[in-house]
């Protein structure tokens, strides 16, 4: 079922020329801006090594650093909550808001909140949640999910957004001017910032040494969400912690350059606790929710753990030939593109989305540009293997893609190759008569759906070697 899902949605996306043009234009722009900046700013290799080291060091001591972070935050008056599942996470946020009698919440961009489907949950509780990032606001108006983790509304062009604003915002004038559309969103949201009972945000880096939450953004909505309302709730996955503050500059440089080709974002907002006595603004109550949602299982496997290095820059999407053509909505789950292909099967289970690791040509463009050097290609291959291994417990749903026919073919292949008396006649037959295999043969039929028919060489390597006088091993 899941296999059909990505195929079907990908095919649908491929047939939509407007969607394809929107992604092509955006991805080309993002790739060239990133390349320009790294070319000018020199030391990509050194910066990348430093960023990867910071992430590896954090993962090597993850439980200890989480405890340290918690202790520091508590010392500064932040309440820390832990959630194993998205249901627990939602319940925690719901309880905080209910206790404060909150009716209106403004929210900065947070992919963890997308994992939790937090907006949907809070609306069910009768709480109005407004996405404050412009891209998130656009897709919220259209009841959509983000199609990119950095640029959530990248799948829409200005005409589509103009039409959406005109239809959904009361009193809006139709305009396709980006400045006018931006001003319209500013006017709507400004009033919400002023009235909001609570603000919700994500976290880019959580520094264990000081208990500091680092948030990056360009619009100022993140600062407004974490400053103006009386309550601030930050959400993060367990992997977001780093050891020390002096690791932030390298990670920050890698993040903003890789994501949008900027040397830095307009705002880097470092928050270390709620308002102190005497301060005139800032939230009087601050919470951090730390979410697991399958990450501890990812952590338990030494190879798969590398997925948790990710700093969510989205560069792997921008450079992925598959993502660029089908767009983010073709992927099931919260995270699309290469990072989604290695993360979502581990969060949702291979039995549900086991096709994702296969939705790749293994071109490794993602591996090459990943700012923290995650071996994405290797992990894709590993997950493909997990999909057929009934004896593995590393990933939920391991073995779900095992097919009796395929196992049989491989066992037969192994047996033939290990038995000269079977191997020689088979190779002789295939090299002479392989071209006559019927097109409808299972396996061959699937192969030929999108590829040319394989042609057998007239002489096998074995025969050629023997003819050249090489002795048998």
């Amino acid at each position, binding site marked *: 079922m899941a296999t059909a899902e990505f195929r079907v949605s990908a095919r649908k996306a491929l047939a939509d020329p407007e969607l394809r043009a929107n992604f092509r*234009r955006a991805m080309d722009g993002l790739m060239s801006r990133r390349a320009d900046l790294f070319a000018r700013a020199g030391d990509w290799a050194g910066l990348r*090594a*430093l960023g*990867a*080291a*910071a992430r*590896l060091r954090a993962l*090597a001591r993850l*439980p200890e650093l*989480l405890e340290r972070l918690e202790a520091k935050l508590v010392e500064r008056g932040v309440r820390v909550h*832990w*959630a*194993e599942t998205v249901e627990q996470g939602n319940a925690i946020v719901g309880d905080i808001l209910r206790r404060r009698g909150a009716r209106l919440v403004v929210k900065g961009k947070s992919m963890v909140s997308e994992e939790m489907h937090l907006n949907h949950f809070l609306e069910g509780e009768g709480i109005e949640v407004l996405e404050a990032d*412009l891209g998130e606001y656009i897709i919220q108006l259209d009841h959509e999910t983000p199609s990119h983790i950095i*640029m959530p*509304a990248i799948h829409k*062009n*200005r005409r589509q957004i103009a039409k959406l604003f005109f239809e959904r915002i009361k009193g809006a004038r139709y305009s396709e001017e*980006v400045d006018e559309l*931006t001003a319209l*969103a500013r006017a709507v949201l*400004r009033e919400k910032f*002023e009235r909001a009972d609570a603000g919700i945000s994500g976290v880019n880096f959580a520094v264990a*040494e*000081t*208990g*500091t939450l680092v948030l990056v953004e360009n*619009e100022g*909505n993140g*600062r*407004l969400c974490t*400053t*103006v309302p*009386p309550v601030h709730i930050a959400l993060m996955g*367990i992997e977001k912690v780093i050891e020390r*503050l*002096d690791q932030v*500059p390298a990670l920050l*440089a890698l993040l903003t350059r890789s994501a*949008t080709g900027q*040397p*830095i974002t*307009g705002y*880097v*907002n*470092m*928050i*270390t*606790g*709620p*308002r*102190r006595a*005497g*301060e*005139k603004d*800032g939230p009087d109550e601050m919470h951090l929710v*730390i979410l697991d949602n399958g990450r*501890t299982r990812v*952590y338990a496997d030494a190879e798969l*753990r590398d997925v948790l290095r990710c700093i969510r820059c989205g560069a792997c999407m921008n450079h992925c030939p598959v993502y660029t053509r089908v767009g983010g909505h073709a992927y099931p789950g919260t995270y699309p593109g290469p990072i989604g292909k290695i993360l979502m099967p581990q969060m949702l289970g291979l039995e549900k989305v086991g096709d994702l690791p296969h939705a790749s040509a293994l071109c490794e463009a993602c591996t090459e540009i990943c700012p923290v050097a995650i071996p994405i290609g290797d992990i894709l291959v590993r997950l493909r293997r997990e999909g057929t291994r009934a004896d593995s417990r590393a990933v939920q749903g391991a073995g779900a893609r095992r097919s009796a026919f395929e196992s049989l073919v491989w066992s037969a292949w192994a047996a033939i190759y290990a038995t000269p008396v079977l191997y020689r006649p088979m190779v002789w037959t295939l090299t002479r008569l392989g071209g006559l295999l019927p097109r409808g043969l299972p396996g061959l039929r699937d192969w030929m759906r999108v590829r040319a028919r394989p042609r057998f060489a007239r002489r096998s390597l074995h025969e050629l070697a023997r003819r050249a006088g090489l002795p048998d091993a």
Partner: protein
Amino acid sequence: MPDARSAILTRLRAGAPATVTPPDEDFAPVAGIGMGGEERLARLRRAMEAVHTEFLDARGADWVPAIHAWMVAQSLPSLILAPRTEPGRRIAERWPGLGAGPRLIPYDRPLAEWKAALFAENGAGLTATLGGIAATGSLILIPSADEPRTLSLVPPVHIALLEVARIYDTMWQAMREQEWSRAMPTNLLLISGPSKTADIEQTLAYGVHGPKRLLVVLV
């Protein structure tokens, strides 16, 4: 949820690598690059102007009348300031003698007591800075009891004073020399331009939620 906490930590410890030697870190790519003073300013200015930051060079002159004149020229109706800071006091003292111009509004009470008025104000907010960062074109701000966070956030124009002698090469250098990690304030900000977005077709638009304009006054 204490149960979730111990369950998560227990699972992490069970899966933790027995002995992993954490990789060493070579900070050369983010360390200071030994720029000269003028080069620092030039780099900062170039990076910030590329994202629409405006500059007013008041070095060697009195910056209070310079700001007054700039605001009059821009027809800005009001200037919100932090009355207990040194720059705030200096402005309050000198402003009346400079003739007709923007009205001064002291930020002297908690946000909750004048939120609606602050949001409605259509002028500028003025803050000091703790220096700048040349490599990225950033200002360092540490909001405090005297200089609230919203002063650089809610008014449509943000005016920031920057002492040219306090520009660092890199963020890494600034945080080490200023010893941030010893006592982090509740909020520490890097501001590198006015509010902007590229969420519609990758087209840059300024002033989406935060200040529409940022003026850096060099002192």
